[in-house]
């Protein structure tokens, strides 16, 4: 009797697991079915690849991208990326989409080399490739939708920190909490941050620590840094996971305002810290606009209205956007502060 009851329990458990999965699959299917149903004559399929799926930063970009796709009407938008941020998996997706003969693949490369190889191969198959958010080698793509170069970001972060610390010659120790030690984008920014720190001789960088994309670890490392370096004036949290972790550690140590935290994140995730004074400035750009512009550019490229050598792009609600060389420029980096952060909702 007992063992048969056990078997039933197990069977129920398995059925529950299968049901959950089936529901998940059904959810996944229905999400795409709608997009597939409409068959226009000149349909353009655009794939939008984020560095890591599941980050609100990219989700908000995708929202803008969907908006553009809807406006254009003849665009089928596919948004997918590795949930663990693995560049190899992302490259695998580029390979698959190229085989499916989509029209344009817009890539935000988490590793320019690994993705670059796949992008070149896809180009050889006649698929249009552009980059957005981050760039790869020039011969791997046709255009880049550029919201900010690594240099712009690095400089903006350091300048923002210097301004927040204040004074004619900002002074004090600063530290960087990065994503992982091997993160290509972050390492690029750090290089330019160090370069820019040269302009502020009294700001000294005392540590660059990894948070391994773990908010809790960013929190702990910041706690450690605050104690190990009592003269610390500023902390850069340069991944969207490290930033809130670092801010929370400063807040809980009771040193909000005395130790300033800045970094890159979507404003909604940081509003509370900006209002309580732990964070004075959040550096970013309008992510929805970035996704929107990317899809606009991709569609123009596929339909032939955008060609190499063009100097302007009609970008719908964003007006006309300038193209410098192969860089389609989104515009200014935004700095969110107490005064303006509530005006943004993304």
């Amino acid at each position, binding site marked *: 009797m007992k*063992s048969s009851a*056990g*078997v039933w*329990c*197990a069977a129920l*458990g*398995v059925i*529950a*697991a299968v049901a*959950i*999965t089936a529901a*998940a699959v059904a*959810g996944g299917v229905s999400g795409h079915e709608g997009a597939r149903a409409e068959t226009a004559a000149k349909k353009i399929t655009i794939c939008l690849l984020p560095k890591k*799926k*599941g*980050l*609100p930063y*990219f*989700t908000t970009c*995708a929202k803008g991208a969907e908006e553009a796709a809807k406006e254009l009407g003849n665009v089928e938008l596919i948004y997918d990326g590795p*949930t*663990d941020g693995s560049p190899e998996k992302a490259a695998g997706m580029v390979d698959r989409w190229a085989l499916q003969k989509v029209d344009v693949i817009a890539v935000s490369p988490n590793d320019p080399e690994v993705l670059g190889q796949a992008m070149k191969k896809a180009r050889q198959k006649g698929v249009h490739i552009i980059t957005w958010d981050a760039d790869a080698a020039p011969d791997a793509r046709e255009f880049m939708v550029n919201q900010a170069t690594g240099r712009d970001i690095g400089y903006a972060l350091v300048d923002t920190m210097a301004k927040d610390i204040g004074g004619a010659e900002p002074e004090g120790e600063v530290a960087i909490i990065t994503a992982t*030690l091997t993160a290509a984008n972050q390492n690029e920014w750090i290089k330019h941050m160090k370069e820019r720190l040269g302009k502020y001789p009294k700001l000294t960088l*005392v*540590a*660059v*620590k*990894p948070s*391994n*994309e*773990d*908010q*809790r670890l960013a*929190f*702990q*490392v910041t*706690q*450690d*840094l605050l*104690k*190990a*370096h*009592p003269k610390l004036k500023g902390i850069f949290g340069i991944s969207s*996971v490290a930033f*809130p*972790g670092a*801010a*929370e550690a400063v807040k*809980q140590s009771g040193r909000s305002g005395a130790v300033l935290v800045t970094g890159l994140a979507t404003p*909604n*995730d940081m*509003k*509370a*810290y900006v209002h309580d004074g732990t964070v004075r400035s959040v550096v970013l750009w309008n992510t929805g606009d970035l996704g929107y512009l990317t899809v606009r550019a991709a569609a123009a490229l596929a339909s032939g209205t955008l060609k190499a050598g063009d100097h302007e792009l009609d970008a719908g609600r964003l007006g006309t956007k300038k193209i410098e060389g192969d860089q389609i420029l989104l515009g200014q980096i935004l700095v969110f502060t107490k005064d303006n952060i509530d005006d943004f909702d993304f």
Partner: protein
Amino acid sequence: MKRVLGQRPAAVRDGGAGARAPARRSLMLAGILILVIGVVSAVNPAFASLRNLGDLLVQSAPVIIVGCGMTLVVLTGEIDISVGSLLGLLAALMGVFASPQHWGLPTAVVIGLTLAVGTGAGLLNGLLVTVGRVPSIIATLAMLTILRGVTEFIMGGRWITDLPPGIRALGTGGALGVPWCLWVAAAVVGVSVVIARRTPLGLRLYAVGGNAEAAGLARISTARVRIFAFMLLGLLTAVAALVAVPQQSVVESGIGVGFELVVVTAVVVGGTAIRGGTGGIAGTVLAALLLGSIRTALVFLNFGETATYWERGIQGGFILAAVLVDHLVAARQGSGGRFIGAAA
């Protein structure tokens, strides 16, 4: 037959010298811990501050809480590598339950539901292992990927940033100046030690792990004991989620990635035999503290930027060294390979 790995219960592993192994391990770990704290404090006195030692405890609390449950599971000869993904799922569910933008349930209900889901996941693991006869490392490996995928679905690319104050208080509040997570960790350690040492159930845990066939002959329901251990581990993972996740303002989908490795490492370095039967809570707790202190110590020693790149290497080397030294000491004492249950 239901071992984690390996073929049979180690030929020689019973009473006698074996009972000394966990105690020796705990003593050694405590010694190293004191040594690390002493040396680092000599270089940078800030390390020995009460505040830092307190933070060290808080940082290790989730590993200690889940480690207690894991120790009991490993004692029965099983393993659960899904705890990291389960922690992530529970964090996401807790966020969805509590967030006013989603379900907005009262705090008590959120706590109850989270604990229930955690225990349920443990039950599912236990059933797969006992009734379904799936080796625990396989069953929980499957759960590791499934639960992570489900978590991504639930979060849908969004984070939860509006945990209500009642839930945040679980992570940031405390009593008598001590954060809740430490009270909870202390209680969990206490209860686990009592279960393992003072109850018939504890005896059964050791018996099932020591020799499942003999335990079967002695009419111990090995299945029930193991299901209990898995359920307890699931419950404790939920407890860890409740006190640790609200320490942060943001619930994201990547919480708990790699956490299972930290917990299993703490259990193993703590001297619990991977094949079950010997070991104990004290070793796990000390190992969790030691592993936590090494990472912090490297920040305080401040070797410079280059050294940052060697931190993971130093940690890995340290684990290897700890296991090796203990093994060699054990061999010299003539109880060779006891704690790790060396092959036959």
